[in-house]
């Protein structure tokens, strides 16, 4: 069913009884050309682009829970492409361009809102670093604007601009094309789009093993029986280590929990995404009025989708320092998502040591904004059995070979990026 103004009017006049399911609920077939493990945004986007751009429609997406129930539904929905290193900058900008046409492409409103993102500057050294990043962005064709404190005040008037605070605001680096989107709609839109092109989306189907014959994968063992596959793509960030353990592969990844929080709904206050530069805090406002914010990882290995109180205290302290008017708001909801923290802070997308097994993971806490680009390059990699130019640097081998994509210059560390 095509969604349009006309379909809305037609349904309104007929009592809204004609809406159909957005996607089917098929039983798994015995064999597929391609199986994607993981029915989050990345896996669904991969299936969608495999069918749409590469004509590969005999595809199943296997999801252990429900579509978009993992990190796709557990983030702060921020979208940006303000990276410095070429590989990251070009990949995330490609993703940004896909975001800009996504609602039309999917015929599904993902509520992409380019309200901009603003990174605050508090020290001279930080201004130098941000100017360098901004210039690198401009050279890669990405939009970037440097603001002084007056410029920041126009964008975010209710920040603490006093000179008495420990790290006064000196300015900010903005990417006006950044913004937010409705995270669930992204998963649903890709699921519907892939389904319409013939992809089977199979929920409540947990992969429990990967069957191999030497260096070739034959298919996957699941909670609903064995399913054969010509190629298998894994897009399960948060649980990559668990899935690759099934084939005896160890990854440069630790799983950590990142918390996010939403306040009670208030009138419009924050009309951009804003990040604190003297601590780790980021905030935006949802269309329902709740302020959505987050900060640091809890900092220890965990697969539990919940965090602890010390991190909450730390995040809120940062937020209230940046924006004192937050102090009397009540937090309504809090959740945790399990992050694939890679050793250099950048993702891993490409081939593995096993011929027809492909990896898409290591997204750290930046996977949501990458969803369209990630699916796009992963589909291309699977269809052509070689990485696309945009993901050729995101290999597993880069760590051993000494070519990490360490945006922060923090060294080999899973929780410092």
């Amino acid at each position: 069913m095509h969604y349009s103004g006309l379909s809305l009017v037609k349904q309104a006049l007929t009592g809204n009884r004609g809406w159909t399911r957005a996607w089917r609920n098929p039983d798994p077939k015995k064999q597929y050309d391609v199986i994607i493990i993981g029915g989050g945004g990345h896996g669904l986007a991969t299936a969608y682009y495999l069918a749409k751009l590469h004509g590969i429609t005999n595809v199943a997406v296997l999801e252990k829970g429900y579509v978009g129930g993992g990190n796709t539904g557990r983030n702060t929905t921020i979208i940006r492409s303000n990276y410095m290193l070429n590989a990251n900058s070009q990949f995330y900008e490609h993703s940004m361009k896909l975001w800009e046409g996504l609602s039309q492409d999917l015929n599904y409103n993902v509520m992409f809102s380019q309200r901009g993102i603003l990174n605050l500057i508090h020290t001279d050294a930080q201004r130098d670093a941000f100017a360098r990043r901004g210039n690198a962005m401009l050279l890669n064709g990405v939009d970037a604007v440097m603001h002084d404190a007056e410029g920041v005040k126009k964008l975010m008037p209710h920040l603490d601009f006093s000179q008495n605070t420990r790290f006064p605001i000196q300015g900010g680096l903005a990417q006006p094309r950044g913004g937010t989107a409705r995270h669930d709609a992204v998963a649903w839109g890709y699921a519907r789009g892939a389904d319409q092109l013939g992809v089977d989306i199979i929920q409540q189907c947990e992969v429990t093993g990967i069957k191999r014959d030497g260096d070739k994968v034959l298919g996957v063992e699941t909670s609903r029986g064995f399913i054969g596959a010509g190629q298998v793509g894994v897009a399960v960030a948060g649980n990559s280590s668990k899935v690759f353990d099934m084939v005896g592969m160890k990854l440069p990844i630790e799983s950590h929990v990142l918390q996010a929080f939403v306040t009670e709904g208030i009138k419009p206050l924050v009309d951009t995404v804003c990040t604190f530069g003297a601590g780790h805090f980021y905030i935006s406002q949802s269309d329902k009025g709740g302020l959505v914010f987050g900060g640091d990882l809890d900092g220890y290995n965990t697969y539990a989708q919940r965090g602890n109180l010390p991190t909450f205290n730390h995040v809120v302290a940062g937020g209230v320092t940046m924006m004192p008017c937050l102090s009397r708001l009540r937090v309504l909801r809090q959740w945790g998502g399990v992050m694939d923290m890679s050793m250099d802070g950048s993702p891993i997308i490409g081939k593995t040591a096993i011929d027809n097994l492909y990896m898409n993971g290591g997204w750290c806490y930046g996977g949501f904004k990458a969803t369209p680009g990630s699916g796009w390059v992963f589909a291309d990699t699977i269809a052509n059995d070689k990485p696309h130019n945009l993901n050729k640097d995101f290999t597993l081998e880069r760590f051993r070979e000494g070519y990490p994509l360490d945006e922060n210059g923090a060294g080999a560390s899973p929780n410092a990026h």
Partner: protein
Amino acid sequence: MLRIECPWCGVRNEDEFSYGGDATLERPSDDDSIEAWSRFVHTRKNPAGKHTEHWQHVNGCRAWIVVERNTLTHEIYSTAPASPILPAGKKSTRGLNT
């Protein structure tokens, strides 16, 4: 809130500690292969379940300790001083005073 028992100071809140990661990694010898070194620096078991890990009681006695903790439930099974984790007869290769 994790409640971690420091072997020297007793049970304390997690915010007195800082996390040091997987405690089962063994440092290769200086002339070991690139592969061995890359495994040590980059690769982690990252188990879902029991994990043996280092913590430092950084806002307390500053000692490093080894904690066995469940990464699914956050249950802590045991804590011990960090030094005896080395197999018997094996000399520590960490730090300058070896």
